């Protein structure tokens, strides 16, 4: 019987039990790979199975892992941050939808860069959400870095401008600009973000040197629309995948990589400022397929 409730895998290979391809498909869907990526990956395995190269569930898993590694390693996959070597500070702009972990990620990045011996400044470009400025100020205290504040309701582009002025005065190496969470469907707010990006570039050639989109690993298929829309307004340079200490697998980044060729640069693994690690492709491929 063709069980439509279960699977799209139509060809069943001789000598294999039906469950294994279906099991694989379930695992991929369950890890938020999405339907198209799941079908592509199971397709690869199916082909291998038909040729008799992959026989067991273990072979299947290995084949999928290899494919995931290949996808994530192709094209832009460098996790290193891009710094400004042409004089003046390096500028990072952090963007994303509401509540994904932008502000916390900024604290983590600031901590990381401070420990590397850089002078860091973080700027409160979220002037909208209640308590957002105070939240960043607290982080600046904990990290021990420079902080550029603001008043609620102020134009975030003006905050970004101020931050660059102050960064020059204080001889800071890296400025990280926070932004308010916004859904990618909110036209006005997206334009506001474009303006922040533009002001940074006008004030300092080549800035921002990184525009990182923060993505919550529990996010499902909406991640595609998020990255597409943000990327259309501001040229993204990478992704930070947060909350990977939870049970979500973050499989959507494979589909994102295929579609937008953006490297995942870091993953967030907790709420503390030390909980940020560079993205490891092999390790991700391993863990995303763990039951």
């Amino acid at each position, binding site marked *: 019987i*063709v069980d*439509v*409730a*279960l699977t*799209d895998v139509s060809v069943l290979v001789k000598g294999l039990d039906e469950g294994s391809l279906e099991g694989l498909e*379930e695992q991929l*869907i*369950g*890890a*938020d790979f*999405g*339907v198209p990526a799941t079908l592509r990956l199971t397709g690869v395995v199916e082909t291998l199975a038909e040729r008799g190269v992959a026989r067991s569930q273990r072979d299947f898993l290995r084949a999928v892992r290899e494919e995931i590694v290949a996808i994530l390693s192709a094209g832009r996959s460098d996790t290193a941050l891009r710094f400004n070597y042409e004089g003046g500070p390096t500028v990072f702009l952090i963007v994303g*939808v*509401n*509540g*994904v*972990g932008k502000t916390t990620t900024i604290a983590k990045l600031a901590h990381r860069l401070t420990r590397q011996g850089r002078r860091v400044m973080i700027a409160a470009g979220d002037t*909208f*959400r*209640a*308590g*957002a400025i*105070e*939240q960043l*100020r*607290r*982080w600046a205290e*904990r990290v021990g870095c420079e902080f550029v504040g603001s008043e609620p309701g102020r134009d975030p582009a003006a905050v970004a401008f101020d931050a660059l002025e102050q960064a020059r005065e204080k001889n800071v190496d890296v400025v990280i600009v926070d932004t308010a*969470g916004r*859904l*990618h*469907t*909110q036209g006005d707010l997206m334009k506001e973000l474009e303006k922040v990006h533009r002001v940074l570039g006008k004030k300092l050639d080549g800035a921002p040197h990184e525009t990182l989109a923060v993505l*919550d690993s*529990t*996010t*499902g*298929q*909406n*991640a595609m*629309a998020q990255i597409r829309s943000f990327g259309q307004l501001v040229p993204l340079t990478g992704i930070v995948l947060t*909350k990977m*200490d*939870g*049970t*979500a*697998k973050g499989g*959507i980044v494979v589909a994102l990589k295929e579609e937008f060729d953006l490297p995942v640069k870091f993953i967030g693994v907790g*709420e503390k400022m030390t909980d940020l690690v560079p993205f490891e492709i092999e390790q991700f491929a391993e863990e995303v397929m763990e039951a």
Partner: protein
Amino acid sequence: MFDQLSDKLEGVFSGLRQRGVLTEPMIREGLREIRRVLLEADVNFQVTRDFMKRVEEKALGERVLKAVSPGQQLVKIVHEELTSMLGERRSPLALAPIPPTVIMMVGLQGSGKTTTAGKIARKMKREMRQTRMVACDVYRPAAVEQLQTLGEQVGVPVYAEPGSQDVVGIARRALELAQSERDRVVIFDTAGRLQIDEQLMDELKRLKEVLKPAEILFVADGMIGQESVNVAKGFDDALDITGVVLTKMDGDARGGAALSIYGVTGKPIKFLGVGEKLDGLEEFHPERMAGRILQQGDVLSLVEKA
């Protein structure tokens, strides 16, 4: 006027209809398309499987095989089934027989608990109920300030003990205050946490013991993917939640999590969050949600007319 799914299904069925008979394999092909739509809307795959079994039984019945437009008929069946599986009726907030009504907000990090607390406080106040909010998130930097700012915006007092880490103590004292002040509604904001974080889940259990809340609202991000099931189950198993709020539904998320969460917990979705501002709270309508998950307009009335 029909949306993508109906079009696709009509495409699937057109070949068959030319030959005059709609066969079982054709319907199965149509069901496969529907399954895909559900998965793309982030309905959990297990929930999808159970759901499709139920739909399959109905679809293989007479209604579809004989329908003039089998695609539309199939969508109608799915829409009806979805609507009934999302909870039949809208479910208002439970008010305690003896005030104050205690409401606890719980959920993962960043899901929208604090904002939703502010929204519910606003609603309660507008309904002329004396309301208070309590800051029980002692971990996130400036969580207290966030709640205080929201309290000012809606004109509702906020109880907080800045600097204290004693969540249960804060809650107990807040409840005493609320009782002596004759508050009608007290809303407790809690820190975001992972459902697998035993220590923090334990903190919620102790809070529940002290507060005996009329409502424990599980707040979930409407953009959540396949994990919605495990997360909701984790919170429900630990706390026996009384309802769900699905936030950030002002975007383009399809919100399949609504079906998943209801599917595993059986707890009603009480509100949708539809904006960052405090008026962005809507009541939940199962039939609208079903349409949204399927990316369909008002399917029922269209089929009725056809």
